């Protein structure tokens, strides 16, 4: 299994799963065993229903098996609303 590093940003109720001392809006590196969005969720212990909005390099993706490349930035939001 190859390992690969991507950058991850977690917001709102998911922030608790980021390493301590990571600032709001700051990306942290994550070493992946499997190079997909699912790999990120699995590694961080995020359930699919919690990962409501996922963006890879600024573009929304809707497939959990979306393939990732080294140094991609993955942003994950739980369900949010306001206005």
């Amino acid at each position, binding site marked *: 299994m190859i390992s690969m590093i991507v950058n991850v940003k977690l*917001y*709102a*109720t998911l922030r608790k799963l980021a390493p301590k001392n990571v600032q709001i*809006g700051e990306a942290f590196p994550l070493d992946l065993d499997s190079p997909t969005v699912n790999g990120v969720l699995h590694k961080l212990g995020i359930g699919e229903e919690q990962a409501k909005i996922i*963006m890879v390099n*600024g573009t929304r993706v809707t497939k959990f098996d979306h393939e990732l490349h080294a140094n991609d930035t993955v942003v994950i939001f739980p369900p*949010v*609303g*306001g*206005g």
Partner: protein
Amino acid sequence: MSKVLRINMEDLSHKWQNVKPAHKTYAGRAFTSTILSEEVDPTCHPLREQNKIVISPGLLAGTLAPSSGRLSVGAKSPLTGGIKEANAGGLTGTRLGNLGVRGIIIEGAPKNSKDWYSILVGKDKCEILKTNQYAGIGLYDLIGKVWKDHPTKPGIIGCGVAGQRLLENAGVFGNNIENSDPGRYAGRGGLGAVFGSKRIVAVISDGKGGSRPEAKDQEKFDEARKTFVKSLNAHAVTGKLKDDKGEPYGGLKNYGTNILLNILSEAGGLPTRGFRSGRFDKAAKISGEAVHDLVDKTKAKFGDKAEGKYAHACHPGCVMACSNIVPYEETGKQHVSPLEYETAWSLGANLGIGILHDVAELNRLCNDIGLDTIEAGNTIAMFMEAGIIPFGDGPKAIALLKKAYDEDSVEGRLVSSGAQTAGKTLGVTRIPSVKGQALPAYDPRPIKGIGVTYATSTMGADHTAGYTIAAEILGIKGKVTDPRDLKKAELSQAFQATTAYIDSTGYCLFIAFCILDDDDGFNAMKTTVDSFLGEDIDVTSYGKDVLKKEREFNKKAGFTEADDRLPEFFKTEPLPPHNVVFDVPDEELDAVFKGF
């Protein structure tokens, strides 16, 4: 039996009337828009005696239905020249609901009067009081004085110095439950100036002797409202503060509406520095997460003395509690309440200001002076666009806004007059307004459905009129659509009609996040309304009926399809990072209300 209070400011008289049979299902926005369309000449000058102010608590205000105490205020808008309904929480909706007041209609204006008045409404009583001591002062001061003079914890709405000077960005303030802040604003459209034109500073609603409104089928109503509470509490957006493990759960309770700042920035749809970019590099610093952390930090430091809060309710009985109290970092004392997403955007990202304290201070000033924050931020942006003060300079923006206190300051008056007036005066060609009202916190280039709402809404650019963001960005009711998918008309119309219904029930629009996702929640919500009225109300046709009256009013006021358009620069200037323009064709915009 609900009553209508009709006040004539010309001879300072009042009378109580029965609700007309044809109006019996109308409350909130349906009531204000119906009365305006029946009684006000759409071509009248909005700041002279022919205009009327209509105030109406939502249908369920004062009942135990969750988050149902919203208040609508309507008039012909001095900002747009069209019909206007703005709604807010605060105490007044609940108080009027308990007093059995379906609506207050204020007509006429005193001739050549130098005096200022307040209207005191109580159980079967109304007094028009001369209150010159309430005029010309900040609104934090004013609400304190009113509670001292009337120790029954009344609801208060009215106008600040901006409205008293008839300036077009004057909002209608409302006191919060604690009476610590006048920040519950029916802000948009300059309705505060209509109060000023009638020489009214405050409408004071004393709930003493009131009672809970009864439903036609109380048993069914009670059952439905309980089911509805369960649905709201279970949803990840509207739900409870913490989950069973004690971890943060409900998005609105933990982070407020300002939970949106980061997602809009990441999505590239957050208008930044006067709609020049879709991303703000300092978004995180002024986001809902930042307020949450500041509250926790000051609580840890100051203990019982800390006044900061999230999960704060804007009116009695709100279970979603998206409001907050932003504390001063140095003392833990209250700085402003609430700081909402739209405001963090307008006074923050839109001005390039990424310091939470400065944004909170600008918000506090707007609350004190009596200004709508969305329009105020857009107006300050015009000063920045014109090079009078630099983007990103918090202290200079604060100094500019403070000029609004000074009656003799022309700049102070201009900064209180809305983006269109300020922009034109200062020679700006990129003025982000539709029908004279400035855009809120979502750029219509990458998020096109909201652009359709901005263009076609009867209210001018207004996100709440048809909040397609729920579907487009937040994935509620359907997936996020491809930005190139142009079929937004249907989406916008559906949201606009449903919104008009919700705005009439007294429910806060944020219930939509739950009911669009959860059929049980939707049915329970509808049952509360139907069992309250003893009638089966069709959500969409009720909403469409309201929209039809509003469109008709605007048409008679002189609006045509040419007014249902976004400013030119949205069609010609691509917005980074996605580098897209607003390219929904005009025919598609006109299709939204075809056949209305």
